[in-house]
């Protein structure tokens, strides 16, 4: 974990209520896709946890959905604004288990961490496929960015306005995969758990106090004992999850 000041390089609306925030600063503590950062915002007592979408030596990309006061404030950030951010939080995805044909499944605000994960898996020569789930076409983002990586991209929308009509599980039915990685709202995680035919990793959300393991605000029970979503998660293995 590291606390440092990041500078806003760009903050742009990608789709309905969805923004991409590009920051420059010290990313040295970010080591794996699936980790998150915790952002201090003026007027909010608690920090806001947001997944790492992409990073390199000095740039950090986040994608967030405006759902309340904190994310509303974030949507108004402009170039050169400064943000106090805790980086390097959470365990991140274990890439070693992916097999040759991993499937990456992201729903809505759960899509961002899939981007860096896809990038890394492809770099390792894996034949990754991605399912991106939305409610409607206006929410669609990053379809082209994923395609540019060379992955096969499946789009699902709940209302059928784009791609396959239905939830991500609809797309899963016709794909064969060696392993899967998923991030999204809990009902989606449950559905994927039931539908999946291989082992995989799930990224969870929980309301957090600290985000770095000190307050026990985010605990959950697993088959391997109690875990803190912020420190021992947010990624859990399929085999250990207790719903």
């Amino acid at each position: 974990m590291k606390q440092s000041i990041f500078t806003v390089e760009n903050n742009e609306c990608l789709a309905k209520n969805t923004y991409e925030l590009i920051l420059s600063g010290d990313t040295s503590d970010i080591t794996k896709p699936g980790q998150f950062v915790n952002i201090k915002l003026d007027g909010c007592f608690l920090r806001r946890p947001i997944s790492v979408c992409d990073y390199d030596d000095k740039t950090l990309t986040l994608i967030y959905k405006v759902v309340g006061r904190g994310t509303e404030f974030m949507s108004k950030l402009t170039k050169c604004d400064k943000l106090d951010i805790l980086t390097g939080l959470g365990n991140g995805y274990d890439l070693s288990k992916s097999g040759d044909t991993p499937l990456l499944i992201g729903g809505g605000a759960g899509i961002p961490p899939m981007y860096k994960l896809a990038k890394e898996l492809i770099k390792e020569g894996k034949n990754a496929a991605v399912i991106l789930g939305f409610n409607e076409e206006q929410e669609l983002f990053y379809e082209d960015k994923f395609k540019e990586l060379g992955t096969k991209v499946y789009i699902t929308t709940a209302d059928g306005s784009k791609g396959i009509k239905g939830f991500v599980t609809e797309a899963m039915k016709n794909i064969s995969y060696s392993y899967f990685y998923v991030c999204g709202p809990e009902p989606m995680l449950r559905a994927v758990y039931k539908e999946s035919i291989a082992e995989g990793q799930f990224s969870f959300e929980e309301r957090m106090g600290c985000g770095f393991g000190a307050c026990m605000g985010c605990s959950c029970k697993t088959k391997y004992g109690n875990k803190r979503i912020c420190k021992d998660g947010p990624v859990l293995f399929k085999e250990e999850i207790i719903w």
Partner: protein
Amino acid sequence: MVDTKITLSGLALDNPIIPASGTFGYGYEYAELYDINMLGSFSFKGTTKEPRFGNPTPRIAECSEGMINSVGLQNPGIEKVIEEELPKLKKCFSKKVIANISGFSIEEYVHCCEKIDGEKQVGLIEVNISCPNVHNGGMAFGTSPESAFEVTKAIKEITKKPVYMKLSPNVTDIVSIAKACEEAGADGLSLINTLLGMRIDLKTKKPVIANKMGGFSGRAIFPVALRMVYQVYEAVSIPIIGMGGISKAEDVIEMMLAGARAVQIGAENLVNPYICKQIIEDLPKTMEKYKIESLENIVGGAH
């Protein structure tokens, strides 16, 4: 050179800054960030006889200038704390630690205090009779002078280390509880614990926290905590550790003027993990600014 040293029932502290129980775990997460040996001491997570998972999640809700938690005393149990956490802690913290103990019966308090009393690393025992999170437990002891007296007395009979009773603010008259603890032989008092509070989510129209209510703390509660420390200081002659909403060096001085000999910092650690280090570094200049040479001399100065 200003003097930040203070003693608590014979325990000498380099400074009065102590992270509060439940917000500092067993120290390791913070030891990754800075040398926690600079702290006066720290109070570890509330520990019970048996391991506890605590309450269902969500356990956290945000408030203006504060937060609500209903962690519900998640801890590995006294046995494991002694066998595993304390030896691990020894590697990153060489000073004496404050052992925070909770319970659901007098027997449980006595059991835990007796066990922890034998541990060299422990400087003093802080007994939480005030945690508002647990339906049938903690709350009851801290809300009547009689039960506060009873539990204090039972613990004092089996311990050698100084015992500080940690009081709940969720009472009509905190002074009567404080006096009962003093009468029963408490060596000191810690106050305040969290205030019972709640939030409702406008989207779901239901309480944010699974347990509906939880403990409110953070900057917003500072004036309430200060007032209670001030009132209790007038009524007792044992030392007080003051806490509730402290977020800067000025607050520390204010709390000490109200009557605290040392202070604890809770919720602020969660949003600024460096806060205790920063306050320790700011304290000397802040003392100079207000022409304070020694903290020892200002305790209760506002009375």
